[in-house]
């Protein structure tokens, strides 16, 4: 179980690093938002699952899962709000 937890955490960390570098390298706002999504929707649950596997059934695991679920819920909402903001600003810039 320790190996499985470590592997899950490592996959999550790799997703975070790749997404962060992609967000830095990509040139425009919308592709950057796409690069940001895996951090909240994939890396968070992977790291949370890894920590949960390492800790077993406990109050600590419940707290970790709560944090990860909150991150997975709020991340797409923030991404949508920022994409809408970027669209509004592009429209205003287009109107001059």
């Amino acid at each position, binding site marked *: 179980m320790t190996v499985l937890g470590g592997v899950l955490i490592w996959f999550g*960390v790799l997703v*975070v690093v790749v997404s*962060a570098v992609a967000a830095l390298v990509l040139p425009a706002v919308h592709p950057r938002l796409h690069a940001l999504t895996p951090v909240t929707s994939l890396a968070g649950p992977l790291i949370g699952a890894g920590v949960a596997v390492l800790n077993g059934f406990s109050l600590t695991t419940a707290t970790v899962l709560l*944090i990860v679920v909150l991150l997975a819920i709020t991340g797409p909402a923030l991404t949508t*709000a920022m994409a809408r903001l970027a669209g509004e600003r592009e429209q205003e810039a287009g109107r001059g």
Partner: protein
Amino acid sequence: MTGLVPAFVLMIGGLVPGLVLVSRGDAVARLIGLQLLSCVAVLVLLLLAQGFGQSQYLIVPLVLVVLAFAGTLVFTRLLGRRP
């Protein structure tokens, strides 16, 4: 803790692109950097609590994930179109 140290160092490295993003570009690009920073910071604090074996430290990422959501939403509202 020892098995998580390389992962923790890599996660700290994941904070650097966020810092670069918040320091250049227009307001929306900086906001993207802010969200990246806050998400990575939550996961770093999660790993820190696990690494030190101190479950009471988990209150910090729990509060941060809620405050980062509210804070970023406020920024999107302030930067948006005026009625």
